[in-house]
């Protein structure tokens, strides 16, 4: 059975193709403003990678903020459902899942089949989302890739007062003037963001096996701050940004937990 999952996020379109529940192709294209065209592009890349055509697909599930904008699909499934399904597939012990994307932060609790028990979403405010680190990397004039590793070189804790991304930018400017090192500022930024996410997670509670997915999971600075805040080590799967699309493809295949 060949299935495809499409995750139309706020910033990127991710596609995963499964053949008998094994990943055979994945692609990631910037959504931009031509979401439909770029989704088609992502699908074409994945199909080519898998060496199949559209007609070979048995079922397609679309998810994410722009799920209805996929060029074609059989069903849609909520992103929280897809996230937890994908997380349980990659890490069967996962009972708590955190997804930090470009414009949304989500926390979920699920059972061993990846079924949602409870969840919490922030989609109103950039403070706990990837958009925050993007804005801060601009303010610090450090590339997004460098921002996380930079935080690890910090030698002191500087508290960040602002929660709002817009105010935080001004605060960073003040820090620059006060000659705070970029490493310390970077840590302050990631601490602030981790604190937003962990307070969201605490609302629903969490278990010891926490899986962190979404693009921001690739940011080592954020992961380090979050681990410290939660008092545990979150599991970050390889390619965390594809977990939503993977979950969608699993849902299309009717996958319900490995064991």
């Amino acid at each position: 059975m060949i299935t495809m999952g499409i995750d139309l996020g706020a910033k990127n379109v991710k596609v995963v193709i499964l053949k008998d529940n094994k990943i055979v192709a994945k692609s990631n294209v910037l959504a931009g403003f031509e979401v439909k065209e770029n989704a088609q592009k992502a699908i074409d890349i994945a199909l080519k990678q898998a060496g199949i055509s559209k007609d070979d697909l048995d079922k397609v599930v679309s998810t994410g903020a722009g799920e209805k904008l996929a060029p074609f699909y059989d069903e849609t499934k909520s992103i929280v459902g897809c996230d937890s399904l994908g997380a349980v597939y990659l890490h069967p012990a996962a009972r708590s899942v955190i997804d930090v994307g470009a414009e949304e932060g989500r926390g979920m609790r699920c059972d061993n089949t990846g079924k949602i028990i409870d969840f919490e979403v922030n989609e109103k405010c950039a403070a706990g989302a990837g958009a925050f680190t993007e804005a801060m990397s601009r303010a610090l004039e450090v590339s997004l890739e460098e921002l996380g590793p930079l935080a690890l070189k910090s030698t002191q804790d500087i508290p960040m007062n602002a929660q709002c991304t817009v105010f935080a930018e001004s605060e960073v400017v003040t820090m620059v003037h006060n000659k705070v090192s970029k490493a310390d500022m970077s840590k302050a930024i990631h601490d602030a963001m981790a604190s937003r996410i962990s307070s969201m997670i605490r609302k629903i509670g969490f278990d010891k096996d926490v899986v962190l997915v979404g693009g921001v999971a690739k940011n080592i600075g954020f992961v380090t701050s979050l681990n410290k805040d939660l008092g545990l080590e979150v599991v970050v799967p390889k390619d965390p940004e594809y977990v939503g699309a993977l979950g969608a493809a699993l849902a299309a295949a009717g996958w319900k937990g490995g064991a």
Partner: protein
Amino acid sequence: MVEQQRTELWRWTESRWMNPDLDWRGKLITSGIDVGSVSSQAVILTDGELYAYSNMRTGVDSPDSAMKAINWAMENTGLTLKDLAYTVGTGYGRVNVPFSQRAITEIACHARGGNFMYGPTVRTILDMGGQDCKAIHCDEKGKVTNFLMNDKCAAGTGRGMEVFADLLGVSINDVGDLSLQVDKEPPPVSSTCVVYAKTEATGLLREGWPKNKVLAAYCSAMAHRIMTLLERIGVEEDFAITGGIAKNKGVVTRLEKEVGIPIMKTKYDTQIAGAIGAALFAKALLEKTKK
């Protein structure tokens, strides 16, 4: 140089005023300094009458901003710091006013200053500042009876408006007027967060919306956002607005419609309310110590 011009758009006009008919000599001189997150004001009173003020952008250093503001207010008046009998600092940088004797919260100062500017009938003062928004209830003497504020989020603040002016390439002074030049009111921008609203506005521009229509959508979203704050505390008449956004007709007109109560007018610069209040407190404190 192009970049330089672009980033200047959010800059509102700094201002200074002095009363040419008053002579400060032989009078009781008190001053109030409001060092806000975005703007700083200095007000000088002679025997409780408004003598001079300045209104400028806050720099990165609070003490320096306070000095600059008072120096500008005193320019060409012959006044020096020594002549100020008592100075009260207020606003977010209030503890960093080097020449002040006391610091008083901006909530108290805005109520007191609002009472001076709008008269004793004012009961609700909405202060729309650079990085926060406060709804204040006060009595006939300008004493605070209740208040509510948002200082967590840029939505509904002057900073949010600056970000938009910058994005659309419109001078912040023109935002209000432009936003009213629409035949039909567009639906408000749906995102609360300024970061997301920016993305949404970029999408609207791409769809072919003219700038004034996007500004209308944003001003109406901001009015709506502030309305939710006002609804929580209630609006008692008379109702006045202080702070920089009070100068933005696009927001004020739409807010007036939502509240359904006329918004009071003033001949004073709406941004100096906090500093006036501080200067009035300075006068009261000085008179108390003299007794």
